[in-house]
């Protein structure tokens, strides 16, 4: 027998990242009028993408990167508590805070994110990581003119930190075992252009795998020596690792909720406990056919999962979302990708490039039947917005028009 659950009267969001914030925003937008509390140990929720960009460079301060000012919460009747949850107590109808206090809630949203993945090599604990504002502050301290900085991982965060570090005058070595980082995300041509920018900006890119972070020797005057699998080594005053995150699943697991490299959720954010939902980097989606998807450690995915969970918390159907989107800012360029650029995911697909003077500005992946599957572009935001609409509407654009720099992106999706 299906029973209709009581509508929630007291919702508690555990975590003050963009997933939790998006859920709060969406709950109020959907007309939820009950109590709404956010546990955010670091205070008012802030946005993380600037931590490896403007905030790290010092061009944006803590106020600027707040997701919303204090008044925003007051206007919406949202309480933000700078507290940490230490246990879910579903049977007691609440969450236990650090210090033992029990906070009552009839629905809980876990949006607890994760911790930076650490380098599991001897000496790996010496590497700095970047997840929180405090991490970015600490990193800023070591990114000084002349500092030798070794960055492990040339994905989005590693590349952005490398860009900020050279901008701040550091001497940067960027280490990644992958020859062409980001190729699955933005396609080979754009990945090649982006990766080449490291060298042009004075970042030394090394293709290898670190095997040990040893103590530096007196001759170099450096704290660390990063030994690589190819036998070479990198002298470094500081080492930074940007190799992804480990989702925080401890609270859920301890409460008997199903986890598997993330708190398992359905498309409306529901976990295996009907009173507990999850969203953001800590969650992992199981789709209707039972397949567990890979966790998406991207900003927009966190926003969408927060919005979906808001619907789920209210017993409403999950909204439909279009093609996923990501962006990165490095070396003075703005990169965006929408949909998929990975031809391995679409047999028979082909890539079309729009280039100016031999330099690719945009790449498109077209399915065998001509549908647009993905687009990545450098400093061409209207093209990405056009592509997003073409993908979501199932259009089959003319490949010649896509490739022609003279064709206005605005004309393509109309």
């Amino acid at each position, binding site marked *: 027998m299906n029973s209709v659950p009581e509508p929630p009267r007291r919702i508690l969001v555990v975590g003050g990242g963009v997933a939790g914030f998006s859920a709060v925003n969406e709950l109020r937008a959907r007309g939820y009028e009950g109590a709404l509390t956010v546990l955010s140990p670091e205070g008012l929720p802030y946005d993380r993408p600037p931590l490896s960009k*403007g905030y790290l460079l010092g061009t944006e301060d803590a106020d600027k990167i707040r997701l919303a000012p204090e008044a925003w919460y007051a206007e919406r009747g949202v309480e933000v508590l700078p507290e940490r949850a230490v246990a879910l107590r579903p049977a007691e109808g609440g969450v236990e805070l650090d210090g033992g206090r029990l906070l009552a809630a009839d629905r809980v949203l876990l949006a607890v994110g994760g911790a930076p993945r650490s380098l599991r090599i001897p000496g790996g604990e010496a590497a700095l990581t970047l997840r929180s504002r405090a991490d970015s502050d600490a990193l800023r301290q070591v990114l000084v003119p002349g500092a030798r900085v070794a960055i492990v991982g040339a994905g989005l965060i590693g590349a952005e930190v490398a860009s900020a570090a050279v901008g701040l005058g550091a001497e940067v070595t960027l280490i990644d075992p992958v020859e062409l980082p980001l190729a699955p995300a933005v396609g080979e041509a754009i990945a090649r252009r982006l990766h080449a920018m490291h060298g042009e900006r004075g970042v030394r890119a090394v293709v290898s795998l670190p095997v040990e972070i040893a103590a530096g020797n007196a001759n170099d005057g450096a704290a660390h020596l990063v030994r690589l699998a190819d036998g070479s080594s990198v002298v470094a005053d500081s080492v930074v690792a940007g190799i992804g995150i480990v989702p925080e699943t401890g609270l859920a697991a301890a409460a008997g909720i199903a986890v598997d490299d993330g708190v398992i959720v359905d498309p409306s954010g529901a976990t295996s406990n009907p009173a507990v939902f999850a969203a953001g980097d800590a969650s992992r989606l199981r789709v209707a056919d039972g397949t567990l998807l890979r966790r998406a450690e991207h900003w927009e995915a966190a*926003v969408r999962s927060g919005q979906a969970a808001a619907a789920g918390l209210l017993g409403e159907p999950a909204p439909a979302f279009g093609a996923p*989107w990501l962006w990165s800012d490095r070396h003075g360029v703005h990169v965006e990708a929408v949909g998929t650029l990975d031809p391995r995911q679409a047999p028979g697909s082909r890539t079309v490039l729009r280039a100016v003077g031999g330099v690719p500005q945009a790449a498109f992946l077209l399915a065998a039947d001509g549908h647009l599957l993905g687009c990545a572009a450098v400093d061409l*935001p209207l093209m990405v*917005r*056009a592509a997003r609409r073409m993908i979501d509407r199932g259009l089959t654009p003319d490949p010649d028009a896509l490739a022609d720099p003279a064709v206005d992106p605005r004309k393509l999706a109309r």
Partner: protein
Amino acid sequence: MSLATRVDIMSEAIDVGSPDEIEEGTARVVEPEESGFDEPIAVFHAESGCFYALDDTCTHEEASLAEGWIEGETVECPLHSSSFSLRSGKVLCLPATQDARTHKVEVAGGRVMLYPGVDADEAVRAGE
């Protein structure tokens, strides 16, 4: 913006050109030197044919909304895809959480007239 600035410029309209000088689905930026207003203003020609104006700089980060994607009666920021209602300035999509400031625009005598610092008609906003 100070109240004094607002009062000073309230009555003055700026001629930003004939309607066909701003193609439908595009926008024109009116710089402070031209408007006397303290921020650049984007004048949008929506697909509906109507004209609207908002502060050009996204309320989230440094980006020109005039360079964004204009569709229906909304504009999507070219940087992080926040979107705003052209009519009311209301923010429709994260990451921005603050509404954009509106400015009154009229088409009169075959010219697009911008009133820098004057909110778009309250009646229009109420109909949103």
